[in-house]
Structure formats: structure tokens, C-alpha cells
């Protein structure tokens, strides 16, 4: 090979062609129970997956054991339930954890899950320094977008710093936290918001570590090197690629200038990616396959914007849980990209491009301004607590939805070229989607009951008391949590102990003062009907927007709240994690004209039933509508229970939804 040719190819020191190693292929997976998930992981690994990405169910994420009342409808639905060390033994059965790169998507209870992992390793005799992976443990996305937080921001930050301190000394290859801007984009964030909110959060984490002053200068540098990011890649893939380049450059600058990190290795922006699910459509879901491919290109095509690890959603995720085959199809896409194409053979192919450089510069400038604004406010924690970030996101999201509604933003198959032939992929006997067997929860509960009966009750109690005391004293909680793990303490017990000390957090909802940018004929029609209602009844229509259960994806509920107000309704919205009792109580006390439920976790049938029982108790005949990811096969049963209307992601037009709702309540007899 001649010397001239080396410029445009990646070569080793001998001038031989040496392509980059592929990124880590992951599939975000877990469902039913520890046993079923273990089988799934082993199958996925045998298919060429190179890392594990564990999805936990909502009770595990929110710090409830499966036998808690609130857990019942959610066990094993969106991930695997983990109650105690016993479940981890089953989950990692025959999987060599010392060889794995394990990513755990967990936040409020991240310290607990890491403690279980450590306890498992020690039990197996695996040296802790061999453990490799990430606990997500992020603040911004939890408080702003995903909603599985437990404790107030300051206490959550304390837990994160505890984990950094423990990991650096004991599990040096573990990433104790991971700044996750992924859900910000899902909640409508612009690239500038993603850049600035994520980096401001990273700054908050590093500042908190600095403040504790638990590391030497060298150790602090290593610690900076352990900060990783989890980013979203959307459909505007050129802009998204530029966003990744901006991230890389800005992180380099921040770590160098703000924290004086000397070792270049520790200034590298390390990140994993899951491509965008927000843009996936329920209409013509097969189009999602192309969207996923294009989104993957943004974070793989150029070397300077190539992720460390990638996980792709399945084409049918807007419908329900994907089947194993659907996940396999997504994995194959990654393998085709990495192994069949030539993209790993070249240095950065966009270096020197004026377009890319210009765009990166523009993004950086805007993001810097926004970061400065947040820092001036007192940093990311303050911007979370005072509701600034949340309201900014709700604003971006309403703008995005207004654009889809007005066709300013084209979404193929949704608001343009909507006629098409139905996909043959959907015609299989399972309807093209996966459903968790409701009976599988019994197995989880059985393991939990057995673990509890078998454990040394005194020891469990003692280790929980010690954990509480340590929390009160402000000590590092990691060793106490590991002791709890070994004593077979349960997830709910661990989280409750800390709830007692820290309390539970209720963040601002971000919907106050939000406006929709809609003023077309549809709005006029709905407002006309609202006025007619007001005249007939003597007061404005009142809607209770309820977000029941542990599912914290509140965007849909927030959008409905904002659009109802835009239409002239009086809206009661109190945020997430309400019980059906609380929702019904609001509706009864407020004498609401309608209850609108938003449920994305698949627990709609159980929750609807509970809600109607409660309405019956008050003899309150208040109409109920429901929105969320609800498969058509459940429609009939829901309607039979009394649900008046069902909205799914197909119903993106907010004013059509409001129109249906006002029609339903307008024909109701006037309330006494």
C-alpha cells in the first residue's frame, strides 16, 4: 500500500488497513420476570449482541417491591421486576458478568441495583474491578421527562456522588451515572436544549463531586473520565450528527477549562445512543424501519460523531412491546451497518466540511448561552426545582405538536400520504405485537415471598436500620446498601428506608402558563362548542387529566391539559403517579364533567377497572376517556367497562381530541 493512500483510510502503524472496532450492540430488553429475561438475554447474546441493556419494570424503577399494591398492574410490563438478590441470581444465571458490559436503565433505585450487582459478584467470587458497565442514574430526564424519580433532587445528587466515590475506589470500570438527554428529545427538546440541559447536568454532578472533596486531583480526573452520556438521535440526521460533534467539542472545553483536566483521555465525550422513538408512528408502522436506519446513520456515519454503544428501537414500538423477532430485526440492522458496509474503514468523512462546521458552531454558540443562563440561575438543580427546564420542554413540545397539526412538519403516513396498503407484517396471529402473560407475575411474587421467608429477618431489619442511620448522618450509603443486598432486603424496603429520611419529591408540572400555537377553524369550532356548553350549564366544562400508576411519561397528559385550557376548559392536572382513588376523588370533589386518563405502560385495563369501582363508590357517573399506547384488541373490553373514547398515538391532532371530548360531555344530562 503506498503512502499517499493512507490519508483517507484508517491504517495501523505498519500501514495496513485497520478499520475501527464496531460500537457495542445492545438491545434494551427485559420483561415478564427474571427467568424469562435471563432466557432472552442469553438468546440475544448468542445472536451477536455484544452488551446487555437491562430494562426494569416500573415498580423496580420507582422503588416498590412487586407485592406492593401499586405494583400489581405493572409487574414485568416494561421491563424485568427485581425484588431482591434472588432475582439477580436468576437474571444472570449462566451469564459471565465479568465479561459483560452491562447497562442498567435505572435511576431512583440505581444505588440499590448496583449494590445487588456487587453482592452477586462477591457471591460468585468475581473481583469487582472486572465489572464493567453503567447505571443510568440521571436527574434531568427523571424530573423533566421520564418521571421515575423518588427523592428530591439534592438527595438524589448525594446518592450519585456516593456512587462515584464508591466506584472509583472499588469498581473503577463502572460508570456510576450517565447523563441522559435521550428523554429530553422524547419530551420535545430541541438540539440546543439537549446540549445545554445535559451539559449543565454534568456540570452539576461534577460540581457536587468537587464539593465533597473526596478525591485527589488524579482521582478527580479519572472521575471526570467516568462520566458518560446517553443521547437521542432524531430524524434530522445532519443536524443530529452536528449535535454530537458539538457535544464532543463542548465537553472537551468544559472539562479542560472548568475542571482543568489534563489527561486528554479523560476529556473524551463518551456516549451511547438509542435512536428516537418519538418520531415512530402507529400509522404505517413499517415506515419506522427506515426512520430507525436514517437515525442510526447520524451517530455512526462519521468517526467524530460515532457512538460507543447503540440500541435501536423496533419498528412496532409505537404499537406496543416488540416481539423477540422485532428486536432481532433491529439488531441485524446494526450488524449490516457495521460489518457489511465500509463505514468503519475511514477517518472522519465530514472533516473540513463548511456546512458541518458552520452548523456545529451555531449549535455550540446557542447552547453556551443557554448553559450560562442555567448557571446564572444557580445550576441544573435549581433549574429543575424552579420548573425552568420543565416549562421550556413543555413549550418546545407544544410547538412541535402545533407544527404537526398545521402540517408544517411533515410526517409521512401521519399527516401526509396517509393512504396505504396495510402492512403484511401485522397480520400474524399475534397481531404484530407482544403481550406479557398476566400470570407470569405469580412467579415473581413466589420468588419474593420465598426470599423473604428464607432470609434472616433480624439481619435484614438491622441492615435497614443501619442504612437509615447512615442516611441521616450523611454517610456514603453504598456499603450499607450492599449489606442490605446481601441480607436479602427487598427493593421496596430499601427505597422506603430512604423515603423515610429524604421524603418523596413532587416536581413542578410545567404546564402553568403554557400556550398552544393553534388558531385555525378547528380551534374555533371547539371553542364554539365550549361556549355553548358554558351557556347551557352556567359554568365552563371541567376536565380532570389523570396520570395513574407508575408510568411517568407525562408528555401526553401535559399536552392534553394545555390543549384543554386552550379550548376553554377548566383543567385539573396534578402531575404523575396518582392512584385511581386520588383521580376519582379529584373528579368528585371538583364535580368534573369528564376524566381523561393517560396510560402508556400497558396497564390500562387494570387501572380502568379500579377507577370505575371507585366511581361507583361515590355513585358518580362521570364520563371517562383514555389515551395512550393501547392496542386495538383491548378496545372492546375497555368500552364495555364504560370507557367512552380511546385515543392512541394515531390521534395526534389535539383539537380533534378536544372536539370529541366536548361532544361527549355536551350530550350528558346537566349535572344536578
Amino acid at each position, binding site marked *: 500500500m503506498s503512502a499517499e493512500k493512507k490519508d483517507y483510510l484508517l491504517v495501523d502503524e505498519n500501514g495496513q488497513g485497520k478499520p475501527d472496532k464496531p460500537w457495542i450492540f445492545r438491545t434494551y430488553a427485559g420483561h415478564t420476570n427474571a427467568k424469562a429475561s435471563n432466557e432472552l438475554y442469553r438468546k440475544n447474546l448468542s445472536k451477536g449482541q455484544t452488551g446487555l441493556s437491562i430494562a426494569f419494570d416500573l415498580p423496580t424503577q420507582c422503588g416498590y417491591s412487586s407485592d406492593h399494591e401499586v405494583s400489581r398492574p405493572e409487574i414485568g410490563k416494561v421491563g424485568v421486576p427485581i425484588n431482591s438478590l434472588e432475582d439477580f441470581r436468576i437474571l444472570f444465571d449462566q451469564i459471565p458478568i465479568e465479561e459483560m458490559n452491562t447497562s442498567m436503565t435505572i435511576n431512583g433505585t440505581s444505588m440499590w441495583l448496583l449494590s445487588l450487582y456487587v453482592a452477586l459478584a462477591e457471591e460468585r467470587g468475581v473481583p469487582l474491578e472486572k465489572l464493567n458497565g453503567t447505571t443510568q442514574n440521571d436527574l434531568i430526564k427523571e424530573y423533566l421527562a421520564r418521571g421515575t424519580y423518588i427523592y428530591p433532587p439534592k438527595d438524589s445528587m448525594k446518592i450519585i456522588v456516593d456512587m462515584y466515590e464508591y466506584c472509583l475506589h472499588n469498581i473503577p470500570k463502572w460508570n456510576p451515572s450517565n447523563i441522559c438527554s435521550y428523554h429530553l428529545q422524547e419530551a420535545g427538546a430541541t438540539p440546543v436544549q439537549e446540549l445545554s440541559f445535559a451539559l449543565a447536568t454534568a456540570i452539576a454532578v461534577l460540581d457536587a463531586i468537587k464539593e465533597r472533596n473526596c478525591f485527589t486531583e488524579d482521582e478527580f480526573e479519572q472521575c471526570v473520565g467516568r462520566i458518560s452520556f446517553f443521547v437521542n438521535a432524531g430524524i434530522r440526521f445532519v443536524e443530529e450528527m452536528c449535535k454530537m460533534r458539538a457535544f464532543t467539542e463542548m465537553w472537551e472545553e468544559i472539562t479542560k477549562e472548568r475542571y482543568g483536566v489534563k489527561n486528554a483521555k479523560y476529556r473524551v465525550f463518551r456516549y451511547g445512543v438509542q435512536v428516537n422513538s418519538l418520531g415512530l408512528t402507529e400509522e404505517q408502522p413499517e415506515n419506522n424501519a427506515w426512520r430507525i436506519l436514517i437515525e442510526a446513520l447520524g451517530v455512526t456515519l462519521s468517526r467524530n460523531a460515532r457512538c460507543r454503544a447503540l440500541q435501536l428501537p423496533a419498528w412496532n414500538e409505537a404499537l406496543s412491546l416488540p416481539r423477540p423477532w422485532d428486536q432481532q430485526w433491529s439488531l441485524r440492522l446494526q450488524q449490516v451497518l457495521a460489518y457489511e458496509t465500509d463505514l468503519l474503514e475511514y477517518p472522519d468523512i465530514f472533516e473540513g466540511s463548511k456546512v458541518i462546521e458552520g452548523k456545529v458552531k451555531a449549535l455550540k454558540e446557542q447552547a453556551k448561552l443557554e448553559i450560562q443562563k442555567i448557571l446564572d440561575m444557580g445550576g441544573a438543580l435549581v433549574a429543575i426545582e424552579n420548573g425552568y427546564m420543565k416549562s421550556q420542554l413543555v413549550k418546545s413540545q407544544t410547538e412541535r405538536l402545533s407544527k404537526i397539526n398545521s402540517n408544517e412538519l411533515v410526517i409521512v403516513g401521519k399527516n401526509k400520504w396517509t393512504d396505504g396498503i396495510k402492512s403484511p407484517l401485522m397480520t400474524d396471529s399475534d397481531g404484530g405485537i407482544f403481550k406479557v402473560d398476566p400470570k407470569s407475575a405469580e412467579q415473581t411474587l413466589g420468588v419474593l415471598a420465598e426470599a423473604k421467608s428464607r432470609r434472616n429477618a433480624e439481619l435484614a431489619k438491622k441492615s435497614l436500620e443501619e442504612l437509615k442511620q447512615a442516611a441521616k448522618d450523611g454517610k456514603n450509603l453504598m456499603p450499607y446498601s450492599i449489606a442490605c443486598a446481601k441480607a436479602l432486603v427487598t427493593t421496596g424496603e430499601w427505597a422506603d428506608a430512604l423515603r423515610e429520611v429524604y421524603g418523596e419529591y413532587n416536581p413542578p408540572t410545567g404546564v402553568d402558563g403554557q*400556550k398552544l400555537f393553534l388558531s385555525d377553524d378547528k380551534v374555533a369550532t371547539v371553542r364554539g362548542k365550549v361556549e355553548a356548553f358554558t351557556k347551557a350549564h*352556567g359554568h365552563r366544562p371541567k376536565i380532570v387529566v389523570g396520570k395513574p400508576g407508575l408510568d411517568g411519561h407525562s408528555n401526553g397528559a401535559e399536552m392534553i391539559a*394545555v390543549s384543554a385550557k*386552550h379550548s376553554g376548559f377548566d383543567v*385539573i*392536572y396534578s402531575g404523575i403517579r396518582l392512584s385511581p382513588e386520588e383521580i376519582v376523588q379529584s373528579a368528585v*370533589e*371538583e*364535580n368534573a364533567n369528564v376524566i381523561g386518563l393517560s396510560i402508556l405502560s400497558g396497564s390500562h385495563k387494570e387501572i380502568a377497572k379500579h377507577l370505575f369501582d371507585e366511581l361507583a363508590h361515590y355513585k358518580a357517573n362521570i364520563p371517562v376517556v383514555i389515551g395512550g399506547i393501547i392496542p386495538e384488541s383491548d378496545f372492546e373490553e375497555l368500552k364495555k367497562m364504560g370507557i367512552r373514547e380511546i385515543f392512541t398515538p394515531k390521534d395526534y391532532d389535539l383539537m380533534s381530541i378536544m372536539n370529541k371530548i366536548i361532544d361527549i360531555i355536551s350530550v350528558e344530562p346537566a349535572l*344536578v
Partner: protein
Amino acid sequence: MMDSTETLSQLVSEALLGEKFPIAKIISKIETENNLTFRESLFNEIQSQKPNAKDGLTIGITGTPGAGKSSLLGELCRLFLDFAPVKKMAIVAIDPSSNISGGSILGDRTRVTLPRRDTRIYFRSQPSQLELGGLNPYTYHVIRFLRKIFDYVFIETVGIGQNEISVSLISDISFLVMQPLGGDQVQFMKSGIMEVPEAFIINKCDEESLANSSYYMLESTLEFIKDILPDQSLPPIFKTSVVKKKGIEELLNFILTYSKRKDKNIETITQLMQWIRNEYGRFGIGIWKQLESNTWNQAVRLNPLGGIHKLSYELEETKFLSLIQNKIAQNDKN
């Protein structure tokens, strides 16, 4: 639409027992336009069913947005359940309506987890309906109704500056909630608002030193006002923190043992005048002045604590309405 007497009587008897849905339905009726006839029947019905119905203490809670009023109320509710096991409380929270659509977002429902189906706490939201003064046009009547059922009725309003005054007019005691070093003090001093509330709360006192410095700042501000009104003693100031669970027990205890009550006759007259001003402007007030010169009304004015009899708002409203209709008819003739 009016209810048949039978339905109303049934609703009232259930409401007086504390049943939530009947209470809610009655409030909706009160919140309906042109509700005078309904109110007359409602209060007559209550009077006939339970002549000695409760007369709950009304507590106004106001302050700038972000002062943490809702969380404070949430914590108060939680403690209330423990501290006052046989008492009942209601909260009316008022939020602003949109100027454009008229709609509103009422997100202030407290997040207190009550025992399932508990009837000891009742929470109701109200849109401000673009009224200045932070109160909804029907708030007063809703409060009057709730006082018959609950021992304590809280009204929470958001307001800046002068707007807080309205809530104090219909409360036995009103609190102004502030944040430590929020800069509120100066603003309030300018607007004269500091003279209105009976008590002050510095909320979010999570940090001792900041809390104390704010306390002393407020105290000296109030002392300054005290010079203007020399016969008044310094109003109490509470330092509270929901996060640290501090000061809230003291606050609750103060409310539970509060004995001073405002004269409901004066409250009635104030509300009536406010309504007349809104509906008929200066013309209406002129006519009211004629009515006020009537001897019985003078007597009420002169005997603020005893009064000759309790004024019935509905009766006074009816009297005024017929008076003003006569006037209008006369004007038309002329």
C-alpha cells in the same frame, strides 16, 4: 335549571353529612351565573335542616407564585389529620384563567395522600375567571356554604401586591406567605399590603441563617408599620419549611386555637358593595347609599360585634335588586 325542592333537600342533607359528591354538585350550582334563587333555597334549606349548622373559621392564604403555598397546605393537611381527629377542613384554591380562551389549569390540588375515601378534608379548585383581586365571583358564596359543613375553610389565592387584600375581606384570619429574601418585602411595603394580613409566613426556611435574617428583616418592616398604627400589636410571623418539616405544627396550632372572628355582618356588606360596584358601577353605589341610610343598616354598623340580627346576604341582594329595578324603571319613565 332549578332543582326540585326534593332533590335539593336530599343534596343538602347528604352534604351536611359531609358526602363529597353532593357538596361538589352544590358548589357547581353556586358557581353558576344568576344563582340568587338557588342560593336563597340553598341557605333556607340548610337553615331548616340544621339551624345550628357549623360556622367554620375562614383562613386566607395568599402570596406570590412560587412561595410554596400548595406544599405548605399539603403538609398542614397531613398534620391536621393527626392533630384534630374530630375536625374537618375544606380548601378552596383559586388559580388564574386564560385571557384568550377563558380556560384555566388548576394544578394546585394538594398531593396529600389521604386515607382512602376520607371525608375529613375536601379540596376544590376555582378558576379566577379574570377577576382582579384574586377571587372568583362566586368564592364568597362557596365559602359561606362550606363554613356550614367544615370547621376550617382555607382559601388559597395567588396574588401580587394589592390583589391579596380581597381574600382578607372574607377570612377571619389571613396569612401572607413569602419566601426568604424573596425581595417580596420591599414590594409589599410599597403596595401597602403589609398592613392587611393578620399573620405572616416565611416559607421555605430550609436554611436556618437565611430564615433568621428574613425573619428579622420582616419584623423590622412590620415594626415600621406598627408606628403608623400604634395601637396594634406586632402580627405573628411563622418560619416554616416543608422540606425540613419545621414550623408547621406551630402554624397549625395557631390556627386551631385562633379565637378572633370577624363580624360576618360587615363581611356581608363589603361583599354586597363589591358586587354592586361590579354590576352597576357608581350608579349602583349611589343607590346603595340610600339603602344604607336605613336605620337597621345603621344599627349593624354601630354594633359591629352584636348587631341586631344577622344579615342575610340573599335578602339584602333581593332588597337591592328590587330597589335598583324601581330606580331603573323610574329613569325609563322620565
